[in-house]
């Protein structure tokens, strides 16, 4: 087989791989759409579903970033504070309000107070991971390392004591 033929096979293989990835993704999205609005992360207040968090809405929010101390990588995205204010308004959020962000696939949970989330110095942000899921990151001591961050976030629960 000559080189040109081999290159053509490689290009066809590349197109097939991209097609399969996008095809599987479309099928998965259609399946997910039956349960919830597509591409949404539910927000619950005191156990009651109040809103679902749609990816397109993030484009309205201000982009922020910081360089993490652990690996020196830039983490950029949208402040959790801005996301919550966009959907809930300040009335639902008091200084002692607890915000629990979780990932069922990772079996990880992080609970923060509204005071911590509201303080922009803490950089509690949703960073878009390389594969397109959201990761909750921060500079709060104890919650500033990868092991503590919440990858593949799929639920936000808010409770006010």
């Amino acid at each position: 087989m000559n080189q040109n033929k081999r290159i053509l096979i490689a290009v066809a293989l590349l197109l097939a791989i991209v097609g399969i990835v996008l095809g599987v993704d479309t099928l998965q999205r259609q399946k997910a759409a039956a349960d919830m609005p597509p591409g949404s992360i539910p927000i619950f207040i005191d156990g009651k579903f109040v809103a679902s968090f749609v990816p397109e809405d993030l484009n309205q929010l201000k982009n922020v970033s910081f360089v993490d101390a652990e690996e020196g990588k830039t983490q950029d995205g949208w402040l959790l504070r801005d996301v919550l204010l966009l959907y809930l308004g300040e009335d639902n959020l008091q200084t002692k309000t607890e915000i629990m962000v979780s990932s069922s696939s990772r079996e990880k949970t992080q609970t923060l107070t509204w005071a911590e989330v509201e303080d922009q110095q803490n950089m509690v942000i949703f960073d878009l991971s390389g594969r397109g899921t959201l990761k909750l990151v921060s500079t709060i001591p104890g919650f500033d390392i990868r092991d503590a961050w919440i990858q593949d976030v799929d639920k936000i629960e808010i409770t006010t004591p």
Partner: protein
Amino acid sequence: MKQRYFSTFQLILLALFSALVVVAKIALRTPLQLPGHSGIFWMTIIIVGAKVVPKAGAASIIGITSGLLASFLGLGDFGALNTFLSYAMVGVASDLILLLLGGDSENPVVAVIVGIFGHLGKFLTKWLFGIISGAPIGFVALGLLRAIVGYILFGAIGGVLGWVTLKALKRAGFFAYLAEKR
């Protein structure tokens, strides 16, 4: 005595390339906030390594060894297994496509295709992990197409840089020096 597939000298070279992949991942920072941008230097190293040790399996050895190093150093956001398999797949995918293309990474088109496929191997590993772990699919939509394009583009750039580096090494007489060492 039965001759080993890789000589000790070649294994040392492959180990050095593996370490270089990890060091580059830690030390080199690009201001691009795009998925897959690290493929620029990553694929350059793999392509050069696979030519310096011109045997099938050389890129896989670089991938697997760098994956082990990266896992033990705690690199990556999705755990050690994800990190190891992502790094390893870069090498394995590069080897497989080099086999298909006849192993001539001195050809710029071949180098670009190897760069793309090697880097896409990493993307596919991360994507499959997302499916298996049940990552929230809606948000994948936000970045999936952008991520694929990013991985392909930066893999291709890495391929070009690898080809340029190989040309420079050849001009400097590096391959003649290696031939003497063998």
